[in-house]
């Protein structure tokens, strides 16, 4: 495999992970915040998210293919599946991060006349960022791994050489996909870990 092909696969993989993580943050963060305002809705929402989490990834990719709009063969279906996996850790950490902010600080802020929005932006989110980033970190690292399976439905990425290597019993080809994927996961883990530590207060 040429270096050019390699870079292309890495690029496809990054797009899968980046798009799905971005969408998952875009949904998980506001929904997680909303659940802290409606704690009664929290347990049913988490129950649904948990069920999705338990579906084996290869099966989920397969199950999505026949669906209209979301499904089909290719990267779009893969992104939908990856979003479903990334959602739970982001949702859960946003919710627990905000709920674990010292209730006395929230009480005092409210009692001194902060609006709900001011409390969220000035107190709750800044204090919860560390936990929220930790959730995003888990989601991204898991996505890098799960995205290799997306090659099974024609989404491309680093799973492609892995599947080809498996079918032709070619270990070099398997490693050509697996090693960059592992390095990518480690790199994201390290970067987001750094961000997480910078955002933890006290």
């Amino acid at each position, binding site marked *: 495999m040429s270096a050019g092909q390699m870079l292309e696969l890495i690029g496809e993989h990054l797009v899968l992970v980046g798009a799905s993580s971005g969408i998952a943050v875009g949904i998980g963060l506001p929904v997680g915040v909303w659940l802290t305002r409606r704690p009664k809705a929290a347990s049913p929402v988490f129950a649904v998210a948990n069920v999705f989490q338990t579906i084996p990834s290869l099966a989920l990719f397969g199950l999505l293919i026949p669906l209209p709009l979301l499904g089909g063969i290719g990267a779009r279906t893969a992104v939908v599946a990856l979003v479903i996996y990334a959602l739970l850790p982001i949702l859960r950490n946003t919710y627990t991060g905000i709920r674990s902010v010292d209730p*006395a600080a929230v009480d005092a802020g409210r*009692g001194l*006349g902060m609006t709900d929005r001011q409390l969220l932006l000035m107190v709750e989110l800044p*204090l919860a960022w560390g936990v929220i980033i930790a959730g995003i970190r888990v989601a991204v690292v898991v996505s890098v791994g799960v995205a290799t399976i997306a090659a099974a439905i024609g989404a491309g990425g680093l799973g492609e050489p892995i599947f080809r290597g498996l079918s032709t019993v070619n270990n070099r080809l398997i490693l050509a996909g697996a090693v960059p994927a592992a390095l990518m996961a480690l790199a994201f883990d390290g970067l987001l870990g750094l961000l997480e530590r910078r955002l933890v207060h*006290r």
Partner: protein
Amino acid sequence: MRFLEFDGAGYTLPGGPVLLAAVSFAADPGDTVVVLGRSGAGKSTTLKLVNRLLDPTAGRVLVEGRSTTDWDPIRLRRRTGYAIQEIGLFPHFTVASNVALVPQLEGWPEPRRRARVAELLELVGLDPPTFAERMPSELSGGQRQRVGIARALAADPPLLLLDEPFGALDPVTRSGLRREFQALASRLGKATLFVTHDVAEALFLATTIVLLEHGRVAFAGPPEAFRRSDAAEARAFLEAS
């Protein structure tokens, strides 16, 4: 018109339990009304009815002659200093930013905020250059409570709600702060509602004592009358001290 008035105010939880029933008393600028009672007597609930953290389910609470339910909660709270036993300083804000919270929300310009912070830290006995830029985690319990009180006073509210503000302190620091607070209260001329379960603190600070028992007023009157009261709950408090 009284500055603050409880007019038969009560608070019942949705499920039925009555936390507060038919509470009536009033306070004017310069008064310190001490709300005294055992744990669960309804003291904190009483305070929360003033700044609309709770709305009365019976009767009324009037601030400057207007029912609290006619006040915009945000406006009412910014005119009402609030300090609680758990303090609740923002751990990611410096001491100065914590103290300047309400002035900042009210959009005071930065130089005025800074001058106010220095003035307030001085007032509660914390040297401004030493403490302004510290984080709450770098303070002792007593220092944090002082910062909590400075924060409550920041926008010069005419009404103060203090819920066991010296609660977490050792007796020596506590009586020191109590003395300082009394000097401060008579100087500032605010209407203060002060919650405690410490009868000595109540007798020392109060112009009026409101003794709560299971959400009802067991005694209301000046400290001298409290000492002579033959209400059973008042005797129980006096004998325990």
